[in-house]
Structures are given as structure tokens and as C-alpha cells.
């Protein structure tokens, strides 16, 4: 099937098998491998991207469902002026170790802060419940997200 969508500001048209997951389309067809896959039951959040500004698990969508959508992946955040403030905050708070959960965690955090600018630590923890990290114990992730918010 023909689809056409905007990914990180670029218009993309492609022919996809109807069963292709959005995450595989992004990774295998567009070469945007920053979005990771950590499970097959939509439980881990490693594949989180922004679809029309909202965070979404890209393993839980078909590529064809993204026809016409505006997508941002981790590759679309940093610009000529450096890292996105959320990326910078993760760096400064040591909120990543192996980094596998990180792209999804950063995308989810951006959308969380956007939607609920006044969250406290508990709110951040609740808001990130769908994004698992096995390395950091979350404390520094929460710290990073809170530091961006203010």
C-alpha cells in the first residue's frame, strides 16, 4: 500500500506491506534505527515516538495507520544548536546507562511535560509507567524530567 507521511519534517512516500508495523517501517525502510524495540506486547515503551505531537508506541501501530501523520522520532530532536532540552537533561542527570530505553523514554517525557507542565515527582513516575528501564532505577530519569519542566 502507498502511504505518505511526514517524518522529522521530511515528507516520505512509500510502498508498505499492510502488516508492516510502524516501528519496522521507520527502522527498516527509513533507516531511523534510533527507535528501539524492547517487546512484542506493547509493554516496554522503547519504541515510543510522537505521532501528531502525542506520544505513541510505534510497535502498536501499523505503518498504514500513520498515513498522513506527522511523526517525530528521536533522530528529529537534536538540531544545529545541540541537543533538545530533554536530551540535555537526561545527559546532565545521568538518566541513562545502556541507553536502550532512552529514545523511547525521552520521547515519552517530552510529551508528558508538554501535556502536564505542572507534574511533581509522583506525577512523572505515574506518567512514565509505560516506559521500562532496567538500568537506572528511574531516580535520575525523574530528576531529568523535573529539571526540564521548570
Amino acid at each position: 500500500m502507498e502511504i505518505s507521511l511526514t517524518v522529522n519534517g521530511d515528507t516520505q512516500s512509500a510502498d508498505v506491506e499492510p502488516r508492516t508495523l510502524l516501528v519496522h517501517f521507520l527502522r527498516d525502510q527509513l533507516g531511523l534505527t534510533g527507535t528501539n524495540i524492547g517487546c512484542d506486547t506493547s509493554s516496554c515503551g522503547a519504541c515510543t515516538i510522537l505521532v501528531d505531537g502525542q506520544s505513541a508506541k510505534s510497535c502498536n501501530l501499523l505503518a498504514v495507520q500513520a498515513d498522513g501523520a506527522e511523526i517525530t522520532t528521536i533522530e528529529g530532536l537534536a538540531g544545529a544548536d545541540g541537543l533538545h532540552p530533554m536530551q540535555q537533561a537526561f545527559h546532565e542527570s545521568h538518566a541513562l546507562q545502556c541507553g536502550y530505553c532512552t529514545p523511547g523514554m525521552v520521547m515519552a517525557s517530552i510529551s508528558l511535560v508538554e501535556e502536564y507542565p505542572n507534574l511533581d515527582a509522583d506525577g512523572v513516575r505515574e506518567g512514565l509507567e509505560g516506559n521500562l528501564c532496567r538500568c537506572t532505577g528511574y531516580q535520575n530519569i525523574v530528576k531529568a524530567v523535573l529539571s526540564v519542566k521548570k
Partner: protein
Amino acid sequence: MTVTDNPTGGIIGQARLRKEDPALLTGEAKFMDDLVLPGALWVNCVRSPHAHATIDNIDTTAALAVEGVTAVYTGADLAEDWAGPLPCAWPVTDDMKSPDYWPVAQGKVCHVGDIVAVVVADSRYVAADGAEGVVVDYSLLPAVISIEDAESDQVVIHEGLGTNVSYEWPLIPDPEGVEAAFANATHHVTETYVHQRLIPAPMEPRGVAAVPAPHNGDMILYSSTQIPHILKVMAALTVGIPEHKMRVIAPAVGGGFGCKLGVYPEEILCLALAVRHGVPVRWTEGRTEAATATIQGRAQRQTIELAADENGKLLAVRATLLADMGAYFQLITPGVPLLGAFLFHGLYDVPLYSFTCKSVFTNLTPTDAYRGAGRPEATYAIERAMDVLALAVGVEPDEIRSLNFIPTEKFPYDSPAGLVFDSGDYQPALDRAKELINWEERRAEQAERQAAGSKMHLGLGISTYVEMCGLAPSRVLASLNYGAGGWESATVRILPTCKIQVVTGATPHGQGHETAWSMIVADRLGVDPDDVEVLHSDTAISPLGLDTYGSRSLSVGGTAIWMATERVVEKASLIAAHMLEANADDLELTNGVFNVKGTPGAEVPLAEVAFAAFTAHDLPEGLEPNLQAEVTWDPPNFTFPFGAHIALVEIDEETGEVEIIDYAAVDDCGNQVNPMIVEGQVHGGIVQGIGQALWEEAIYDEDGQCRSTNLGDYLVPSAAETIDMKLDYTVTPSPTNPLGVKGIGEAGTIASTPAVMNAVVDALRHLGVTEMAMPASPMRVRRSIENAQGGAV
């Protein structure tokens, strides 16, 4: 030239941000599945849905008919492709029983997830379609699930072995002494604990690709592995590829926690299939697949006995284990209980010690190292039992510990199990942890709630710990029958423009080696850490190494880096002395400049020395050009980090829900290179250990079916259940390495599980609850309360 014994440059000890981060934060880092390999074939593994069965027939017709499927192989088809079965590097006893473990099962399957056939296709989707089409007929055999059933030998899994018992391993230096101590003890505590099976669950599942060069015989194996160096040797032997033709590369690795410390069927399979097909062959594990295809951790039943005098002073400790190996041996499966064998007396001064382990096969996924490997198990047993002893003696849990700590003046301490503990000062860590948690106030609050009849119960749980890290002195490994050494190698190279290249054999998978190693080298050379590049994880670039596990990287690999740096400085000082017409012994290197001690102005920057070493126009007679040094460091002893953790939990009697309210951790890992990285390791470790205490369990039914195959059923902690922890440190340097470091990768996981479980029992003790199995799920907590109260709640 004076060689300093201690780090002095001021960079070691700084909380420096990590140089690994930008690539990981932007998606630039390449993990296994990110690799683009033109022309690669994809593998999908057809796995047994049964725990124990004979394979009667495999029909591949439908699979081969799928468009895009290149080939389908069964165990019989590939039987000639292996030079030997999958390797086990740790035959712990000479008479250990070890079944053959083939990459694809031959004739019978021994656990759910055992590979019975492989489909090779031109895409991952088509390979999966093909796998759907493989029809396997099985005849079911009775499955051996519990270790008790396994021990009984009523059903023998590997007929050729004649028994399910693989080995018995005793460590009893003075059997009569132990008997006498128990006979004379005032207090004799006997406790039995079960460590449930755990699924390691790094966020990145495993993945492999084998890339052949059929005409010149080279082979590159990419794998999401912790151990490219060990894998290279083992895989070369197993497939029969000459070692010098094999190169192993670990790309960015998304966590390991021990489960990527193996030589797996899929690695060997991809190699063999790449040889057969002459093109790249790759496989990426699915999360559900990982639940039974990747090793699991813990899985042992332990009985621990304490003999103590009337005051609670320990006289002897006796531990007896029954350990679940799973269906086969992975790389170090049989050795995991031995890594805890020496530590069942914890950090207590005990004259007499007895340890015995019996290990059995079951029809479950093989077990192997999981964060802490053996040491969390040992610590759990002694720390839970110490609380029981405290109760018997009638003192507080902190008092029983203080009474029994190895006194500081006894270090280096000859342990009753035969180790020499390098250094320790245990009381300050416990005092500080009590301060952080507000011990006295919390105790008072707990009593108030109990007096008021509150249904929200508070519990305080302590775990002190010592671990043995820095695996390992090669000689000690030899005495344990381990098949390799424990050294680590490092190369430090000063390039012509005074940029530094460091090559390490310690392979990182999230720990931050690049940052830490740069700091060690920069500290000594007086250069900017950003001018140091750390190369690793590719056996063509770093040919020698023993990789990352057992909190060894800093104390073994980091020491090698430090020593190689020293050696480069020694050589550079000869050139500098030549340039300054001075004596090398009179030079010192500070802030990147060699100067003649006591002679202001007589100096030459390291950068000029580096360039002189490169041009080689005017070097001292007999000195080779260039500045580089390689060191292989074999540590003389383990290191023994320690600490004290205290958990405060609140339990809702109505729902059985356990909530962590507060957590204090005081760890001592000796000198710290980068405190920020230390803190991160402690955070992650604590949460992982809390996971075992409260939520995580690989659940199997009586047929050996895993009921927790995905992250919805296997409860890896999320941000919502965890809290901010209070951390502090004491610093007791290790005298066994020049950096004075000990290791911190596993400490949190070792300490937090017993701390939380002690807190859970402490919260419910006044209700009559004396014991709780892990994980302390709401259902289990409710049931314990009901049982304690005769079903009256």
C-alpha cells in the same frame, strides 16, 4: 621519574558527565538489530512448546513452500555442522555430570523454548511465516519441574547420565569443629529460603549476525553479548572455524545483567548457517521468545543454620543448597552457586563454616549468572537468618549485626571459607544508614501504629553485605576448576598530536567504561578526558580481554589501564629527560608537562614528547619510537566491597500490598573514579533487587509452561512503583590494586532483596507472620497473614 602509587591528578573522583551519552540520546548508537547487512538472510527458530518430549517427526513441506523461505533445517540436518556441543566453561568437579547441549535439539526436547528447527528466509517477516508452517510431532514425557522432583530421580531427564544430579560440591574446612559448635550452641537457627527463578530482562533482547567472507575464510560474528572475547574462542571451537579467522564485535549492547554472558545456540547457528549459505545470516530475539530462550537467574533452595552463644555471637554457619541448573549447562551454569559458596557467613566474624551444594537438572530453561550471581543468594540467606537470630536472642537486628561484624583491626581477614577479605570497616556504614532512614523515629512510629491497631503496618529491614568482586585471580579460578583466567588487558597509546587511544578488553554494556577509563588516563597524563578515546568490543581492535561481569571492570580492567598509563609515562619520561638533558628520575609529570623537580623553567610538555617519539629523529640510544604500552593485569586477590542498606515498607493489611516508603543505602566500593556512575549503578541495582523481593518471578505451571513470558506478566519494576533512594558512601580503599577500587555493579542487587524482605516480615511479625516467600505479592502477603491468624482475618 617517580611513579606515584595513588591517583593524584584531580580528575579521578569527579562526577563527570558521560561521553557515551550523546550517541545514545540521539539514536546515533547502533545496537544489534540496527545493523544494516545487505543480502542478509533472517533466521527464525521453531521452538518446543513442551518441556519434555521426544521428537517423532518434523514436516517442513509447508514452510519450504512459503515464498522467500530459503531453507529449513532440523537438528538431524545440522548434526555434522558442529565440532562439538555448546560449551560449558566451568566443570566444577571432576565427576560433574554434563549433558550434550546442541544448538538444535536432536531427538528430544528438554525445555519449552528448546530449538527444534530453523527457518532461513529473506526477511524477518517471511522467516516467521515459515516457522508457522513447520509441523512437529512430539511424544510427551513427564516433565521434571521442581528441584525436589529432580533430586528424587523418578524421571531422569538425560538418560545417558543416569541421574538428574549433576554434582555435589562441599566446602567444609573443619567438619568436626562445625558439629561441635552446633552441639554446644545456645541458639541454633535453621531457616529455609527459596530463590525464585528470575528473567534477567535487559531492555534489549539478544541478537546475532554472522557475516562470512567465503573465499578468504574470514568470519565476523556480531552479537549483543557481554563477552566478545570469550565468545570468539568458544564459538570458533564449537563451529570449527580457526580462531584467527574469527572476529567478534559487540555493537552497542542494551544491558546484560549476566544473561548476555553466554555462548548461545543462536550464535552458533548463525555461524553455521553463514558458512552453509555464504551470505550474512541474522537473528533478533523477540521478548516473548527471550522468556524461555535466554538464561534465567537464581533458582535455588537454601537451608542455612546458625550456631550462636547466649549473647548471639556466631560460632558456626552451615549452608546447604539445592540448585536448579535447568535443562542444560550454559557457559558458567554450574559455577554460579560457587560464586556464593564463600559468603554465607556474610560480613560476620565466624570461626567455623560449612557449605554444600547439590545441583540438579530440570525441564526448564538453563540458569546462569544474573546480576550478582551467587552473592545475592548467599547474602539473602545470612541476612534473613540474622534477623531470626536477633529475635531469638532478644536484640534489635542492628545490634546482632554490630556484635558479629568482623572487627576492623582483623583486616586483612582470613575468612573461615578460606578467602582473605582485603579491607573493611563495617560499623560506620550501618550507623550512617540508620541515620539516613531515621531509625529511632521510624521504630517509634511503627510501635505507635501497632498500639493504635492500625491496618497500615510499617516494617524496617536491614541488610548489611560484603561481596567478592573483581573476578578474578587466575590461580583461584584454577582451584575452582574454571576453564579460563581472570586477568584483563589494556593498551594506552599516545598519538603524535598528543591525543590518547586506549584499548580495553573489558567490554561495556551500559556501565560507562569510556568515561571512566578516559578519566583514569587523563588523571595521570594531565590531559583533557575528551582527548582520550576508548576502543573496545571488537576483537580485531582489542584482541585480548575477558570482558565484563562480576563487578570486575574497574578493579581488574581499570587497574590494567592505570598500569599501562604508568608504563607509557615511564617511557615518555626517558624521552623528556633526553630533551631536557636531565635525569629521568628527577622529572615529574604534572598537568601534562614534564618538569625537573626543583628547577623552575626546566620543562617540556607531554605533547612535544609525543611528537618527538613519533618523528624518532632524536631519541635516547636504544629506545623504540612511539609511545604505547600494553599491560595484562592478573589481580592478586578479589576485592570485597560492603555496605548497609535499610528499607522501610508499609503494608496494607486489607490488600496485602507492600509499598516501599523509604530506602537508605550506604555502600563502600573503595575509591570512586566517577561518583555519578557509582550512584547510577547503585540506583539500578537496588531497584533490580527490590524487583526480586516484591514482583519478579518466572512462573511455571506443572507442565513446565512459562506463564510470565511478557513484560505484562513478568513484572519488571516501573517508575510508578519505585521511589527516590537516599545514598551515601564510606570509603575504605582496597589495598590490592593501585587505584584502591573495589567494584559497585552488583552491590545494590545484593543488598536490597534481603533488606526489603526483612522489612516485610518485620511489618507483619506482630500479626504472627514469621516467614514470607518471594516475591511478596499482595496475594502471598494476605495468605501469610491469614495463615498466621488461623484463617481468621
